[in-house]
């Protein structure tokens, strides 16, 4: 009996042409696509910008101004919960800021080719999220107008800041990260700014001429730029780890029940990347739809990011479990009280919601390639993950403070209207900055995409087409 041999097919998940790297278009057409997306502003765009600006005014000028004039009492924080939504927001936004470095620097260092079209979108998130996060230490100060006393400078009081305080480490780490990540955002932007300069007129031309620093695209310039990007890509990674580790140490270094934990450093870093990469997905979905960047941002990219999110969901669960189990097994009275509070107390609905959004939903959906390649589904999943990660920070910051060793001082915390308005205002600040940046800066690193497409080719081996990559560096 003879069996007809089926033609041996290469196990292709998708046609190779669906990949951006294997679907090149003429460079000039690509430049036009990015420039047109940047220059188009309809009434819808200006409505969104106007609405956001109004929310920023209400939240940051109105509510924050009121708080500065009246005192911290207008916030809901109360003894013994001295830190509430403000510090929760701070940790949350620092977490979001990790996306840029993770998605851009780490993937660049490991030469993950799928990173090329969306590194800039992620790096922009880092800088803007840091600006928003950096506002919170000021917002939460009782005497905001004295914030500069934390800066080490020779002063008439002849007093340095206290370098033993984790808050001081925090300030220095965030400042370093903001400077480093902004330079890291700027370096790969230069060739694209030059591209925009050569193709625009009027104020845009003047702006880009200034920003492009006279880039001409000579061999030496490319060499220097690549070297600088490489140095920064490596150098920014430890800075990123240090920032969220130190944010975690704000809590871990204390002797407050529920905070004092040696695992908080890596736990917070993993949680930050989890929520940060999820936020990148959200931004990419919105940008792709609003700016019609379907050519650059494809299902393959959501697929790849979905895998990263799933892996970090596993990692986050591992750290969460390790932290929880240690506390529970240790069995100290106040730890037991805190864990009971999470499972049965007033924060219980939030706590269970967090477990669903951070563990159940990603684990049940993201293993599926069809889910990962659907931008709409990915948006909902990553949105719910960010809700869950916000809850996680809220329970750690505010929830843990409601219980302490001496039961007479237990308390309840509910955010006040001022705290909610300021939170909305800062979220609007982030979206507003991003919305403005999408119209001022080329959101897609065109030269990186073109470089990648140049390096990729399809080679015919026998009857099948095999993608191959040429090493450029």
């Amino acid at each position, binding site marked *: 009996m003879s069996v007809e041999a089926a033609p041996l097919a290469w196990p292709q998940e998708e046609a190779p042409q669906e990949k951006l790297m294997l679907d090149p278009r003429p460079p000039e057409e690509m430049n036009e696509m990015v420039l047109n997306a940047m220059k188009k502003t309809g009434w819808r765009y200006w409505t969104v910008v106007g609405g956001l600006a109004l929310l920023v005014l209400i939240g940051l000028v109105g509510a924050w101004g009121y708080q500065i004039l009246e*005192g911290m009492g207008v916030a809901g924080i109360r003894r013994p919960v*001295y830190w509430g939504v403000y510090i929760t927001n701070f940790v949350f936004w620092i977490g979001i800021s990790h996306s840029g470095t993770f998605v851009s620097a780490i993937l660049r260092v490991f030469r993950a080719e799928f990173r090329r079209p969306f590194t800039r979108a992620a790096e922009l998130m880092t800088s803007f999220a840091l600006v928003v996060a950096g506002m919170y230490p000021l917002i939460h100060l*009782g005497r*905001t107008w004295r*914030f500069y006393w*934390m800066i080490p400078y020779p002063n008439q009081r002849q007093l340095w800041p206290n370098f033993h305080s984790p808050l001081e480490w925090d300030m220095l780490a965030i400042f370093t990260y903001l400077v480093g990540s902004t330079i890291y955002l700027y370096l790969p932007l230069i060739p694209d700014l030059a591209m925009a300069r050569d193709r625009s007129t009027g104020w845009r031309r003047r702006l880009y001429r200034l920003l492009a620093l006279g880039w001409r695209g000579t061999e030496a310039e490319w060499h220097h730029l690549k070297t600088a990007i490489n140095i920064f890509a490596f150098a920014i990674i430890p800075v990123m780890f240090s920032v969220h580790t130190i944010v975690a140490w704000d809590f871990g270094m*204390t002797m407050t029940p529920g905070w004092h934990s040696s695992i908080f450093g890596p736990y917070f870093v993993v949680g930050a990347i989890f929520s940060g990469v999820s936020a990148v997905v959200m931004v990419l979905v919105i940008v792709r739809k609003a700016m019609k960047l379907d050519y650059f941002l494809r299902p393959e990219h959501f697929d790849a990011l979905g895998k990263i999110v799933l892996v970090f969901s596993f990692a986050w669960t591992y750290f969460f479990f390790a932290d929880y189990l240690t506390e529970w097994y240790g069995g100290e009275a106040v730890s037991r009280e805190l864990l009971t509070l999470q499972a049965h107390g007033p924060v219980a609905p939030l706590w269970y919601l967090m477990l669903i959004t951070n563990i159940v939903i990603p684990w049940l959906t993201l293993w599926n390639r069809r889910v990962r390649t659907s931008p709409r589904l990915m948006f909902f999943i990553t949105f719910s993950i960010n809700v869950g990660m916000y809850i996680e920070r809220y329970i750690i910051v505010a929830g843990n403070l409601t219980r302490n060793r001496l039961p*007479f001082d237990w*308390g309840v915390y509910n955010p006040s209207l001022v705290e909610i308005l300021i939170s909305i205002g800062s979220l609007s600040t982030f979206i507003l900055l991003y919305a403005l940046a999408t119209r001022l800066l080329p959101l897609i690193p065109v030269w990186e995409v073109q470089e990648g497409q140049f390096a990729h080719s399809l080679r015919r081996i026998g009857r099948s087409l095999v993608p191959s990559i040429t090493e450029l560096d």
Partner: protein
Amino acid sequence: MPEQEHHWVMVIDLDRCNGCQACVVACHAENNVPTVGAEGVVHGRAMHWLHVERFWEGEYPDVKARFVPLMCQQCGHAPCEPVCPVFATYHNEVENINAQIYNRCIGTRYCANNCPYIARVFNWFDPEFPEPLNEQLNPDVTVRRRGIMEKCTFCIQRIRRAEENAAAEERPLNDGDVQPACAQSCPTEAITFGDLGDPESRVARLVRSGRSFRLLEELGTEPAVVYLKEGDVYVG
């Protein structure tokens, strides 16, 4: 490092405390601590530097109230000190007191979160002293404005005054010269204040009495407030 002159210690006899709260009132009056009204207290905005914690023991009808007056424990190894980024809370080596410099405070409230005794209070608003309380503000003590952390100082202004008086009279400081407002006002004399460095002082004898313990001693904060166990039924 300057030489430590005294080791100020407060001893509180829980057996004598009947929860009358005279010490709380005296503390408010002495240290210009503002009141916040019933609503503020319910909202967790009470400013008491010293509060009397009340615990119920047993089941109805066999119930007993226990009182623990609690203020800043003036820890020898204080968790609030290292976390302050601007040195507003620091250790006064001379008096062995945990000092709070109001002018330096920027209001991060980190110290309050790290205090295991929840002894610190925050100025949520600018203080208000309604008539006639404004007539009796203590000129020896600053009135603090909004956004600043504060706490029990062991009535450091009284310690200073007693030291100055003794110096003026060219005599050493005697046991009992320094009386914080709470100790002075306690009708049952549950609170004793003095120098533990002097082995013959009243506090030194009370600390040696065998009934003494310190709150949350296991944390290693080395509080300067010593409690005396209740002699009758205390199981501890």
